[in-house]
């Protein structure tokens, strides 16, 4: 587990913690079933307030990444559920939206963009 807090980031600290944990859960660096440090332990380790880590954990819980049990701490939930798929879909949409915005900025039409996308898809090994 790795958490690096930036004071220059526009993201609030709780969101930085949340996003970094999410990233590591999604890419498997933190395995399902793994126990996370307690809210108070984490706050102490990274030098932020308890309220900040509480918020990060409760957001991760609400999004279905972790479960917190009274007295037992928080564990990472299995990845193959609908919520995580939703997260991945959102990520794909974000990437495509960026492509559309960039195309708009330099005046590339939707047709041209679809062509680029088609070409990329053909050369990739995605079936």
């Amino acid at each position, binding site marked *: 587990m790795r958490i690096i807090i930036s004071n220059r980031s*526009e993201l*609030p*600290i709780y969101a930085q913690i949340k996003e970094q944990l999410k990233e590591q859960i999604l890419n498997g660096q933190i395995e399902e079933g793994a126990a996370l440090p307690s809210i*108070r332990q984490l706050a*102490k380790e990274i*030098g*932020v*307030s308890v*309220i*900040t880590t509480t918020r990060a954990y409760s957001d991760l819980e609400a999004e279905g990444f972790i479960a917190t049990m009274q007295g037992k701490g928080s564990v990472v939930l299995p990845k193959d559920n609908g919520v995580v798929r939703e997260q991945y879909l959102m990520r794909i949409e974000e990437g495509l939206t960026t492509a559309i915005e960039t195309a708009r900025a330099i005046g590339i039409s939707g047709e041209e963009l679809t062509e680029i996308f088609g070409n990329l898809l053909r050369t990739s090994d995605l079936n």
Partner: protein
Amino acid sequence: MELLEVHGVSKRYRDFQLEDIDFVLPKGYIMGYVGRNGAGKSTTLNLIMNLCKCTAGSIWVDGFSCEEDEARYKEQIGYIGDEFYYSLYFTVKNIREILQNFYPTFDRGRFDELIAQWQLPEKTEFKDFSRGMRVKLMFASVLARETKLLILDEATNGLDPVVRAEVLRLLQDYIADGEHSVLFSTHILSDLEQIADYIFFIDEGKKVLFGAKDELLENYVLVKGERQDVTPALAEEMIGIIDQAYGFEALMESGRAALLARDFLCEKPTIDAIVLHYIQDKTQSGKERAV
């Protein structure tokens, strides 16, 4: 569970008034009490320490009031101020003896552990201690007995970054079990901001803002830009506009910042910036009234 409850506390002096201060600090959290010099920070802390009596209101620490049981109330509090309160001709050895006789819960082993950890010399008189060493000694004497609430009155002033970092760590250790809380006052938060759960901002004896630090930071944005782009309607929305040679800086509620055109730069604020702009806002509206 609340550890510290301050209910409607007022204190009247001839030339200063603390008015209707009201907050609670739950167990296991850190609160920063901020404001400029003379805002009423020390007055509030002195009232909690029972060094003076409230004109109105009541204060409770872990369910005890000072009126009920003064000894029990005070035993639960550890206090560190910005001034060194031991005789400059004492040594660590003298202090150990005094504390042992004075506090039933004084843990000599824990005290010696801290003294060794910070390499404080046993036989040197305190007049030859640096500011950092004096602060560490005050921490050692407070942490070596059982308390529930730590009160720091400008205790981190003038400390170098290394000692400050150690103090932050100490405070986080102190609250880690969820049973102890810290109330610290300061006129400049800087690195303490990150570990504070709650912020109480006081000015001229009155509350200006109180809330969870993360919420306060989210509720405001720092706006920068050119003064000519600020319409009168926008100026109304801005809190404490500070003019600089080639632009301005002001605070705005996050919800209202959507009104801004792209000409403005928006940044997330620090608590110190929020305090600065609120005080600037007060000074400005004072001037307008005078005109």
